[in-house]
């Protein structure tokens, strides 16, 4: 057992309202620079949709992530052999048009244009070439465009669905979507680190944040290919690659990362999870159907004395272990088993987990006879002759999940490597807590039914209350449990601090030398 600590995240998708505040907070702090305009270390996608960069999930195009081989795993599009062959000619790289060409407007023309017959306009100019462009695409171009041919129906996750199922999804009455915020997953088995020919990318020992050393990066851009989530970006101005740094300067100061701090829906949780580094290779090379279970198994119980002993042996501070015990992410992922990693089949063992969205799943459409209702209407009133009812009732317990208008197969291909049971289990738990809370607050559900539902998913009423509290009432310090960074200890490992003692400020005043002989 080789216990290490990892800062992990949980995004609660039911709470995401798609406002992009996280993206803008991140952009304003980190990527508002020349060469970084097109980067969105944090972005929010509409699902179903093609995302950013377009179709990033389709690894037959971008060749990211790991693939299973006879004796373990290998990088799909990079690595020692393929990387060397393609080092001057990386064939699977996304191009700027796959992201979008960043632009601004010539606002000054509005006030400085000479007098003329026409109203002056602010023409769009490219932030790369500086020349006027036709805007072809922008960040979140497909935002909220759930039903469109170009975006929603090209979603790579639809490829497991039959044509009939896809058609059913995109009927006007049934159409639904949810938001998927994405940042770097700070994976346990990061493909970007493995692919870097310069050895510039590393996973920080103390908290598992994956970083690119800007002094060592030599712009081979293998990480851009290798990251299956396309969260490593090339800065054409500095000639280095960049990625989400999980706001480590903020974390070290005890603050939440900017995207999480600014989240309006409070969907984001951050905390330490202890994991067993000895088993990473074994887990990453598991078969597709065991991936999720094995991934969950290397996340260790921070209350287990054996785990604590091993953690201490590895130099993990007591405060970090304490933070792991209070970690909201550990609760969501392991204790309540509510959250799942995104695209586990890429085998990078991502440490950002998602609570799958219940709402578009839970609600269903029923055909009802509305003729009686219509008869009551005034003859001049507009009468709808369709008979659809958007139903969010909880009359039937689990039937709605199976008959949901949003196919489970779709969610399964996002969150559980195609295993519908795992998604269903999580959705049931969410629903159970909801029914239980409805019994508590509204009271239109009998107590027995509420408790039966909880028992069905293996929750006690106390657990359901805990889930409810952390989901709906959690305050800042409940959502972000950030361990102390112990930077003073880190410095002591590198230099003797006694040397620096008393040498701050301007130092001792020395007499100036006398001039002349």
């Amino acid at each position, binding site marked *: 057992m080789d216990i290490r600590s990892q800062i992990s995240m949980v995004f609660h998708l039911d709470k995401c309202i798609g406002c992009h505040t996280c993206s803008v907070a991140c952009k304003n702090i980190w990527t508002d620079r020349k060469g970084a305009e097109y980067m969105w270390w944090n972005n929010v996608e509409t699902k179903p949709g093609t995302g950013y960069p377009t179709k990033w999930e389709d690894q037959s195009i971008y060749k990211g992530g790991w693939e299973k081989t006879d004796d373990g795993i290998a990088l799909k599009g990079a690595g020692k052999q393929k990387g060397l062959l393609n080092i001057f000619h990386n064939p699977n790289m996304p191009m700027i048009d796959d992201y979008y060409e960043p632009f601004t407007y010539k606002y000054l023309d509005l006030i400085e244009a000479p007098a003329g017959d026409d109203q002056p306009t602010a023409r769009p100019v490219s932030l790369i070439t500086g020349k006027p462009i*036709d805007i072809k*695409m922008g960040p979140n171009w497909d935002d909220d465009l759930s039903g469109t041919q170009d975006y929603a129906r090209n979603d790579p996750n639809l490829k497991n669905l039959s044509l009939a199922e896809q058609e059913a999804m995109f009927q006007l009455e049934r159409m639904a979507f949810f938001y998927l915020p994405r940042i770097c997953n700070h994976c346990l088995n990061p493909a970007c680190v493995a692919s870097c020919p310069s050895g510039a990318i590393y996973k920080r020992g103390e908290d598992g944040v994956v970083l690119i050393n800007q002094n060592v990066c030599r712009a081979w851009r293998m990480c851009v290919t290798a990251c299956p989530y396309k969260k490593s970006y090339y800065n054409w101005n500095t000639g280095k690659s960049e990625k989400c740094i999980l706001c480590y300067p903020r974390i070290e100061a005890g603050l939440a990362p900017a995207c999480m701090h600014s989240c309006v829906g409070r969907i984001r949780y951050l905390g330490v999870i202890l994991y067993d580094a000895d088993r990473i290779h074994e887990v990453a090379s598991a078969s597709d159907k065991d991936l999720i279970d094995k991934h969950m198994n290397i996340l260790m119980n921070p209350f287990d004395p054996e785990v604590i002993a091993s953690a201490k042996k590895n130099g993990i501070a007591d405060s970090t272990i304490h933070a792991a015990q209070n970690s909201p992410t550990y609760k969501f992922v392991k204790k309540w088993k509510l959250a799942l990693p995104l695209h586990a089949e890429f085998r990078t063992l991502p440490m950002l987990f998602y609570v799958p969205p219940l709402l578009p799943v839970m609600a269903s459409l029923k055909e009802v006879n509305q003729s009686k209702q219509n008869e009551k209407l005034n003859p001049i009133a507009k009468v709808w002759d369709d008979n659809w009812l958007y139903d969010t009732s909880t009359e039937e317990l689990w039937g709605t999940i199976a008959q949901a208008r949003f196919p489970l197969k779709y969610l399964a291909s996002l969150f559980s490597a195609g295993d519908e049971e795992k998604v269903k289990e999580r959705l049931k738990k969410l629903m159970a807590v909801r029914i239980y809370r409805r019994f508590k607050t509204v009271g239109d559900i009998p107590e027995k039914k509420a408790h039966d539902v909880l028992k069905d998913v293996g929750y006690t009423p106390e657990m359901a209350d805990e889930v409810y509290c952390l989901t709906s009432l959690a305050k800042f310090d409940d959502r972000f449990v950030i361990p102390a960074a112990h930077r003073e200890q880190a410095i002591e490992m590198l230099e003797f601090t006694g040397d620096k003692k008393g040498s701050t400020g301007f130092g001792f005043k020395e007499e100036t030398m006398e001039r002349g002989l």
Partner: protein
Amino acid sequence: MMYQCFIVHKNIVGFFVAAGLFLFVPTGFTQELGKEIFTQKCSACHSIGKGRLVGPDLAGVNDRRSEGWLLKFIKSPQAVINSGDPVAKALFEEFKMVMPDQALSDKQIRDILSFIKKNGISSSASTPPVALAGPVPQHEIELGRNLFQGKVRFANGGPSCTSCHHVKNDAVIGGGILARELTTVFSRMGGEGVRAILGGPPFPVMQAAYQGMPFTDDEIRALVGFLQHADQEHAYQQPRDYGWGLFGAGVGGVAVLMGFYCMIGRRRKKQSVNQDIYDRQIKSE
């Protein structure tokens, strides 16, 4: 520190000794300098009273030409010829080549001239002219050819002749065109002339190329032998002319390489995944 002072001190003594020598410089000393420069710079092409080599015999040159003319001509023969000097022109007609410019001071030239004046008559009798060797042994020609082409390296590490020179010979393919073609150099300059040039190259570029890497005597003998052989045989030689074939092979090679590169690029992602969306969009102008 003490030791260093001592060295400086000793050097100062040395300096005064040298200065004293210069102050009381005897005429014999001037001639010694002249002899040294003559062997270094002139003897490759000129003899004093031993007959013509590459250039004319310089015995009695002081009487034939004025000192002013000599100073001017030795510094830059081409300039004198260009100025339309009839004597210089006649020399060019006779010897078919221009003597390279010499970076010598007036004093050095006068030293040489005084050396020539002194030795003009006396030395001619003392050493008999070198007789031309008879037929060159085959193995020497072989060695010379290999040295010329760089198949055998020069002992002191000098560059092979073929880098700059060409010789029409069956065995030599594609010599350099940076310097003169050497097929008939033997009949133009004679064995002694070629030997002298190899012994101490008078041409500035060749001088620089072989700076500190002189030919050995054996090498000179072999090269002269090869050049003599090449000169005698050149009428019968038919070296293979690749001509357009070589060019064609180059073009073919490029085509093959390009094909190979195309194969490498075959699996490249060729366009944006959004290209069909972009193509439908309305463009301004």
